Every structure is written in structure tokens, then in C-alpha cells.
């Protein structure tokens, strides 16, 4: 182990701000990216499921739906 104390480790020879700034941002973005991808995937899957459900039910109902909107 190279470090004498945890304080030294954090200080990074007076360059702590730069080193930890780099590491933090890098880690943050590398966590954020897969999270965003996962979230995008989840919303897409939900949207598609909804769409499929609507379509399978719609074939029979589409006429009347259009008609209903005309009336109100």
C-alpha cells in the first residue's frame, strides 16, 4: 500500500480536487448512461405493450370509436 493515511489519500498531494473531480464525474456518467438506457428501454416496452393491447382490441372497436367522437 502506497498511502500513509486516508487524509493523504483524499488530498492526493494537493491535487485532490482535480483527481476526485475526474473520478467522480467519470463514475457518475458511467452509472448514468446505463441507467438512462434502462429507463428508455422500460418506457419503450411499456409503450409497445400498450400499443399491442390497443391494437388487438381495436380491430373490432375502431369504427364505433370514431363514431363516438363525432357525436360528442
Amino acid at each position: 500500500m502506497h498511502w500513509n493515511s486516508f487524509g493523504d489519500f483524499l488530498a492526493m498531494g494537493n491535487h485532490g480536487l482535480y483527481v476526485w473531480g475526474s473520478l467522480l464525474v467519470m463514475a457518475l456518467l458511467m452509472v448514468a448512461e446505463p441507467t438512462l438506457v434502462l429507463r428508455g428501454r422500460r418506457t419503450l416496452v411499456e409503450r409497445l405493450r400498450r400499443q399491442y393491447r390497443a391494437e388487438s382490441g381495436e380491430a373490432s372497436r375502431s369504427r364505433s370509436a370514431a363514431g363516438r367522437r363525432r357525436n360528442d
Partner: protein
Amino acid sequence: MSNGLINWFKYASPQSFYPLAGKLIPWFWALAALFGVAGLSIGFLLAPTDAQQGEGYRIIFLHVPASWLSMFIYLVMAFWAGLGLAFNIRLSGMMASALAPTGALFAFLSLWTGALWGKPMWGAWWVWDARLTSELILLFLYIGFIALQAAIDDPRRADKAGAILALVGVVNIPIIYFSVKWWNTLHQGASVSLTKAPSMAAMMLWGMLLCALACWMYSIAVALMRVRTIMLERERHTDWVRALLTNQE
């Protein structure tokens, strides 16, 4: 036709690639975590202080992998794009689109870590040096690629247009890589190369390589995740997606 080629085409169809990718993703995550922990502990806990730069040099374990990956991902992206253009394989266009954001991320990280390194070492966040500038251009190329694809609604057209741009932009990669050689600049030259023996301490080298491997595995994992999403989106009218999403609740 050889057996290998047939297999290749089989996996090039989204339908069979989708589950395969799903199975591979956890493995790449595991590898990324493994290499990452190893690389970072070597880099931040074990590696000795640099004689000239003090402890600030430890940014190298972040900066260099990010820089390498930003260039490498562009090459891979261009390769997929070219393949798609030449053979009209649906998968390759999707792969190219999936890689672009990750590449842009690494280009940004290279700039960010570089800037944070530059302030203590050079006394400036930014200098208009050839390497820095060309890395900035690389970021612009990624953004241009993403913007171009986003501006075209028809995915097939978007793939083709993006592919042409990616292939034309490849010329920038050698410029970035060799910029330090061609212009004398502030930025460090390559200290790892295939021809020369590495000019840095073995410990540092190992840390850097492990971190780079971690980033590499990370890129593959994220790209695979993203390509699966893109596949669902683009193939939403095919039966296999419909079956997939309506069956597994």
C-alpha cells in the same frame, strides 16, 4: 459458402441476436466491474507517486482509457456502418447507432479529465493544442452523427446517411492519434506503442491497461443494452417482438 459465414448471417438477424445479447450482457458487466476494481486499486492505492507530476498524475488512469476508447469506438462504429452500407445488414446500422452515444460519452470524459489534469499541470483548463482540438473535433463528429440520425425519421435512411458520415469522418482518427507527432505540442506523446517498449513504470502501465479493459467491457455492455432497445423500437411491427413483449409479463 462456408459454415462460418452462414452462422454469421444467422446471428446478424435481430431476432436471434436479441436473446444472445441478453445473455452476454451480464458477463460483460461482471468483467467490467472486475477489471475496474483491479485497475483502480492498482492505480489509486498501489502505484507509486510520479516523479514529475506528483499525485496529480493519477488522472492518467481515467484519462487515457477514456481517450483510447473514444477513438476506438469511433473506428468500430465506422466499421459497423460500412458493413451495413455494403451488405445491407439491418443489425449493423443498429450497432452503429448504439455505439455513438457511448463514444460521445468517452470523448467528453477525455476532455473533462484532460481539462482537470491540465489545470494543475499546465496552469490552464484548455489550450488550443492539436491533440486537444482534434479530440474536440471527435466529440463534434459524434454529435454530428447523432444529430444527423435524429434528424431523419426513417431509420433505414438514417442508417445510410449516418454510415456515410461515419466513414468520411474516419480520417479524423489518425489525425488525433498522430497529432502529437506531427505538431510539437504541450500534450504528451504516446508512451504505449506496439513498436517501442513501454516507457513507463510497469505498475502504472498495468493500472492503465486494466482500466482501459474495464472501459472496453463497459462499452460493450452498454452498447449491447442499447442495441436491444433499438431493436425493439425498430422491429416493433414484427411478430417476434410482439410475441416477446406480449408473452413474457
